[in-house]
């Protein structure tokens, strides 16, 4: 499963943030996006996930291969951990949630409602969702927020297993997951040049 991005320009709120972004992620590789706040990490991930259109450029990947984990975990507060996970498994047509519960150390919490989880436990449940989607390309936006050291290491090993099975991960993260093989892409060099206002304002210049 290969993800190839070439000459991608993406915008947030009509303002181009990044231009000329290009990289190729072969199966089994991970890429970490770095850059200061507001440089367009989330925008890039959402564009690749197909949640917003790009201004120009191409994104090449097999259909239905991408799963996206954003800042919000997509959990329903009144459903239990197992119900939340079982729903996403059913939507993606994958069998069983036990392996995912096991992998993210959630088995003991399976019967608890999501509203009674701590922030870190919620995040672990949100990350367990990645496993039940069965999709090879993971787009992760700050996956380690509110995780403790042990859980970061746990997720690091889950991600490594995913890569070893031929999966791919593209993540925006400030914290080192311990994925030594991951390449780093600094987005600062792709920052879009400020553009002069066009069209409408010219009449008033």
């Amino acid at each position: 499963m290969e993800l190839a991005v070439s000459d991608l320009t993406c915008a947030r709120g009509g303002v181009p943030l990044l231009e000329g972004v290009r990289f190729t992620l072969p199966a089994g590789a991970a890429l970490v996006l770095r850059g200061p706040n507001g440089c367009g990490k989330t925008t890039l991930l959402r564009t690749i996930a197909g949640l917003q259109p790009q201004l120009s450029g191409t994104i090449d990947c097999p259909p239905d291969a991408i799963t996206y984990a954003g800042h919000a975990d997509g959990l329903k507060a009144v459903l239990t951990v197992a119900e939340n996970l079982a729903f996403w498994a059913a939507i993606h047509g994958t069998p069983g949630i036990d392996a995912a519960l096991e992998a993210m150390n959630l088995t003991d919490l399976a019967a608890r409602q999501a509203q009674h989880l701590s922030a870190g436990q919620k995040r672990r449940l949100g990350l367990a969702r990645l496993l039940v989607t069965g999709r090879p390309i993971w787009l992760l936006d700050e996956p380690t927020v509110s995780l403790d050291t042990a859980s970061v290491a746990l997720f690091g090993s889950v991600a490594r297993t995913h890569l070893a099975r031929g999966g791919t991960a593209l993540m925006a993260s400030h914290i080192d997951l311990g994925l030594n093989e991951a390449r780093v892409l600094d987005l600062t060099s792709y920052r879009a040049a400020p553009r002069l206002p066009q069209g409408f304002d010219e009449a008033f210049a």
Partner: protein
Amino acid sequence: MIALLLRDLRLAFRAGGGFGLGLGFFLVLAVLVPLGVGSDPRTLALIAPGILWIGALLACLLSLDRMFALDHEDGSLDLLATAPIPLEGVVAVKALAHWLTTGLPLVLMAPLLGVLLNLPGAAYGWLIMSLLLGTPALSVIGAFGAALTVGLKRGGLLLSILVLPLYIPTLIYGAEVVIRGAQGLDTTTPLLLLAGITAGSAAILPFAAALALRVNLR
């Protein structure tokens, strides 16, 4: 798709899900009207079809803004948009879930409230029939309105203003069926038009709503 329907139904019935909210509103409205209008049976019988239909319409409106807003807040909508089911299907399923938790209970409750409003005996069958045919249109049109306003904070009022005018045809023909039924007249024409509105909106609006959702997700 079935998983999504089951999840939405389960959420509606759990604490804070809002099931019964519309039903309670409908009940209160039907009790308030005789208090405000006076208890003259003839007057009540005259206005009962309209009141029952307006009550059902407003009760439907109450729970509309939750349809996509809750999923948008907790991020599920982003995840559903990248899931293998089409967004059009998501809209259709959510409208169906809304109808099952709001519209269908209203249909079942309406005859009881008809008694409170002295609805003529001949009209009960037509009341159930017209609501059964008309309320699905309310849910589907409402889903379109909810999709348009999904990104807005406190979008509920805007949603009402957008959706209520779209409810007018359903209201006119729905109430017309009951009025004609009460007078023993032929109801075929308004009934067919009502069914046509429901079928037409169910066929077109999920696509429009999915388009609106895609724009709002950006």
